């Protein structure tokens, strides 16, 4: 619909009826109920999750494809662009709060629950428990080695920090209309992100097989893997966004004025970067 003169970019954009939302809902119904069946050892569960995930991917391709088409068709005005900016900011805020729940849990466990397990009253139950971080709790006793900050985590910190710089250079190249430089620096950013994920996977493998550090290694294992794992998933999502942006750059999308999708992906990437710095300090360094 249009609130402006014919031919001008409308200030509002209201999309046509769409079947993508209901497709996504069916996908999540299959995935959610399928996972419940799967985790309780019912045979069809993992198939439901697999089918649901395939439907979800189909929906994401279709929906984002539609949005990209609309954007290329110049259907989005300045006002719509501002809406996108608000919404991406609030989405990132919601992600911040998701991580806050897990960082809060880490804080509580380190400062309250573990010291309490070493208190006088708990000595009645577990007289030999030292209650020092890192810990797998008073009851589990499989020896493990904690993960320090030097080594892969430090390399990964440098990788992510560098990727933030390369992405900013790519953004400046985009604004300056320098497409060759944009492609090079965006590609480098993706490469750094994927390398980060590779190192992270290697670190996990190493921890499982040599350090005997698992998700089930008490609260230390729980907080370590859940925090770094969710961060890793977010890096993967951010890298996927950047790969899509790279594909769009190759197809000639974006110009110096219209490139909010690129900026949104960049914001997300910087957010993931900041979460990593917190992880590096609070999970790896202060072990």
């Amino acid at each position, binding site marked *: *619909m249009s*609130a402006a003169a*014919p031919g001008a970019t409308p200030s*509002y954009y*209201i*999309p*046509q*009826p*769409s*079947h*993508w*939302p*209901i497709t*996504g*809902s*069916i996908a*999540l*119904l299959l*995935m*959610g*109920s399928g*996972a*419940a069946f799967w*985790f*309780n050892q019912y045979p069809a569960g993992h198939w439901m999750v697999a089918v649901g995930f395939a439907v979800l991917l189909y929906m994401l391709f279709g929906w984002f494809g539609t949005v990209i088409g609309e954007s290329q068709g110049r259907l989005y005005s300045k*006002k719509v662009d501002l*809406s996108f900016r*608000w*919404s991406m900011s*609030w*989405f990132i*805020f*919601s*992600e911040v*709060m*998701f991580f*806050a*729940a*897990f960082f*809060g*849990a880490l804080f*509580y*466990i380190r400062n309250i*629950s573990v010291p309490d*397990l070493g208190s006088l009253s708990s000595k009645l139950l577990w007289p030999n428990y030292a209650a020092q971080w890192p*810990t*797998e*709790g008073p009851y*589990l006793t499989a020896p493990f080695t904690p993960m320090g900050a030097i080594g892969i985590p430090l390399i990964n910190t440098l990788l992510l920090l560098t990727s933030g710089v390369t992405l900013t250079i790519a953004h400046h190249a985009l604004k300056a209309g320098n497409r060759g430089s944009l492609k090079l620096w965006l590609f480098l950013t993706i490469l750094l992100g994927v390398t980060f994920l590779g190192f992270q996977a290697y670190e996990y493998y190493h921890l499982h097989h040599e350090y005997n550090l*698992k*998700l*089930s290694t*008490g*609260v*230390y*294992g*729980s*907080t370590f*893997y*859940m925090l770094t794992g969710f961060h890793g998933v977010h890096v993967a999502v951010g890298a996927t966004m950047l790969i899509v942006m790279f594909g769009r750059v190759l197809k000639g999308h974006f110009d110096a004025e219209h490139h909010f999708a690129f900026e949104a992906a960049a914001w997300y990437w910087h957010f993931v970067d900041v979460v990593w710095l917190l992880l590096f300090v609070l999970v790896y360094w202060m072990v």
Partner: protein
Amino acid sequence: MSSIPHDHAHDGHGHDDHAHHPTGIMRWVTTTNHKDIGTMYLLFSLGMFFVGGVLALTIRTELFQPGMQVVHPEFFNSLTTLHGLIMIFGAIMPAAVGFANWMIPMMIGAPDMAFARMNNWSFWLLPPAAIMLIGSFFVPGGAAAGGWTLYPPLSVQAGMGTDLTIFAIHIMGASSIMGSINIITTILNMRAPGMTLMKMPMFVWTWLITAYLLIAVMPVLAGAVTMLLTDRHFGTSFFNAAGGGDPVLFQHVFWFFGHPEVYIMILPSFGIVSEIIPTFARKPLFGYASMVYAVASIAILSFIVWAHHMFTVGLPAAGLLFFMYATMLIAVPTGVKVFNWLATMWRGSMTFETPMLFSVGFLFLFTMGGFTGLVLAITPVDIQLQDTYYVVAHFHYVLVAGSLFAFFAGAYYWLPKWTGTMYDETLGKWHFWAAMITFNITFFPMHFLGLAGMPRRIPDYAQQFTDWNMVATVGAFGFGISQLIFVWVLIKCMRGDGAKAPAKPWEGADTLEWTLPSPAPYHSFETPPVIK
């Protein structure tokens, strides 16, 4: 609501987008229209209200007499758990979002919501979540039975019904976050020229702040239930002392979500009432700016009071004192609101149509619920009353007579705008008085039961509690039946059975939606109105 003429906006404008609108069921499945989506939210919420109501009446049937009467204790636990989850996530929250969808674009002079397609997804995520919640009754082990708060260790030990609940909460959380981002963006970016923030209707203000709360706390709930899931199936020890964790950790994370959630459920109701009372008192809202600041203060305070739900878990004394005083502080902005509503009515030319009746009923009963909240905020008193029927009475006064009554008020207030037909005033008044009286018969005795020591969430009780339980059960059935009057009113309006509504049926109303014809056109404001 098939009585709405959908092609209303055709006249004079080139609306080629109407040409390929699907019809029939697919119209509702694929719609990107804020009014269609608002209608679906409201009808879904009404449906869930009756599902949750049936669960509640089964609980009341079991509690009619002491001893085990109708259901097994395990099933009773599932009933209380799912009654809470369905009423909160299925009835109250979607109703509030339904009002937001219908009213915010009209009140700020926008054509629709900022993200119309995502708006559709926010709604259509709810039916899958409802299927999973209700379906969990039929899986082996039955539905989740650890209470709607899902406290470990019960929720860690329970069967797959709890997993379905966890995933349903994830999906409903995604729905709420998307809905809230949409609402915030709409309010911040789509207001008509000249409508500054401090000229917005109070309903829009309350939803702006509610949406902020939702975005801040729904991810925290997602984190809490995710930790529950990994504790259940993947060997983590977040809530397991043997592995170094702590069940109380769940309560902290849960109530960091849960207390703002309480205000998420009541703030939109405050907004609705703040629209209705000035209209029927024929005076502007008293202390508009202080109302805005009060809502904002309530929202901020809601983040630092969560542990008042946990006074009996063994917090240090400093913690008990802090959370007691912080909780009592909330009475200050809430009192500002109550006094402003009263001052709005003071010397107004009041009439008492159904929306006003429900609003005054809200004001009276919500304030009572607020007072019992103050009683419960006092730590030593709460230690006595924790998990008794006094708490049940308290939160039903604020959620049923608070949120729900305000939603009924809003429904009667805006039904003429939504359907183009005036509701039946006689039936509306019957609905109000029936609901008002039966509500109090149901929940007022629960104060006595709680003070006398009757615990909640238990299917049996000592004999001395019998009389008031019988009274409560009779009241509950009366309350349930009186809601059928509302369904009758609604059907009459939707069928166009009643007087035709003028654009502005309430002479005292002055918000923008009343400048549109009734029923409101498919797209609200094609050209933004200019606000002076």
